[in-house]
């Protein structure tokens, strides 16, 4: 047998479904998204590190003009975002869709209840082309959960449009005093 791979039995089971040439996060598009965030006038970011957001967060960490908060759980970021809003500092939240689920009470009972805008950029894992089984349930229900919460959302699929979409998400969150979500899709985040 050639090319022996030393992986745990469970991982070996799942790897059967994963294309041999595994996908990687797009360096170029991560830069375009980060530049888009900055071009929208954002000065502050909260995030929980996740694979698709990793390169973005590295840029945020290295940028002295961005105040970065890495949280232990995404619901904290809703509080931090509210604090930034009250303080008058433009802030966006970066999270995975599963983290969004974990933040829902804060979104409903702080942001929506008090009309605090949230501009959320959400890594839309677990949908078309998703090889990892553990992401799929969350991916399948994300859109319906957003609808159930009356959170306006758009899909970001192309690097040509994403900067404009970030700016528009930001503007709409501020004018509507509401949470809004931009779903960062596989088309945009992987190469």
């Amino acid at each position, binding site marked *: 047998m050639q090319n022996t791979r030393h992986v745990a039995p469970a991982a070996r089971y799942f790897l059967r479904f994963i294309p041999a040439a595994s996908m990687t996060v797009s360096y170029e598009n991560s830069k375009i998204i980060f530049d888009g965030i900055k071009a929208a006038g954002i000065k502050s970011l909260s995030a929980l590190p996740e694979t698709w957001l990793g390169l973005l967060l590295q840029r945020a960490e290295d940028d002295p003009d961005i105040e970065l908060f*890495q949280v232990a759980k995404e619901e*904290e970021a809703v509080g931090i975002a*509210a604090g930034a809003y*009250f303080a*008058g500092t433009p802030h966006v939240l970066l999270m995975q869709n599963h983290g969004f689920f974990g933040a829902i009470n804060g979104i409903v009972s702080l942001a929506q209840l*008090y009309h605090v805008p949230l501009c959320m950029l959400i890594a839309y894992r677990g949908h078309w082309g998703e090889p990892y089984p553990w992401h799929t349930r969350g991916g399948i229900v994300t859109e319906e959960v957003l609808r159930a919460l009356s959170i306006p959302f758009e899909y970001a699929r192309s690097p040509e449009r994403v900067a404009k979409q970030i700016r528009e998400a930001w503007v709409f969150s501020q004018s509507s005093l509401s949470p809004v979500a931009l779903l960062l899709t596989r088309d945009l985040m992987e190469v």
Partner: protein
Amino acid sequence: MERAGCIEMMYPELEDKVVVTIMGASAQELYNLGHRENFFYLQHAMGLASSIGLGLARHLPNERVVVLDGDGSVLMNLGTFVTLARYRPKNMIHVVFDNGSLLSTGGFDSQTASGMTDIAAIARGAGIEHVAAVATTTDFGEAFVEALERNDLSVIVAKVAAVGPEHYGMDLHLPENGFRFKRWIAERKRAGQPVTA
């Protein structure tokens, strides 16, 4: 020691601070002393008061932020201590009133009631340097004054009796509270962000 007495002791100092409280008794007892535009009452979203405080403190370096938290709320967001430790807002005082009870929702014992769980120890273990655990009004007052004089993140865990106000109610809609709170901060910024002692 009763929480209402602690809040009354703090009240004169809160005149020029950015103040965030949790829901229920803490909010009501502060409100009953006289509402100010710089008080924000988080009447739901349990656990997030200190996260709001962190966001405020890091973006308002010339203000002092005081968060009035409780055991029931902070137990819902223990991760806040590690995030606070990491970003260490020097201008924030996090007061946790620990009455061992979910008082506002019927007075059920919280996990701290057994005496096994030590919120101050959790805060220290998270990496917060200045944590005071107090059980008398005098000690509370001293800890609060020390925190005010210290230019660093301070947590005060105050053991208090599980008693609250007899009546709940505010003549203040929730979004109105948020709007006015934000406006107070904006006006302070326009006026040149006075540095508080």
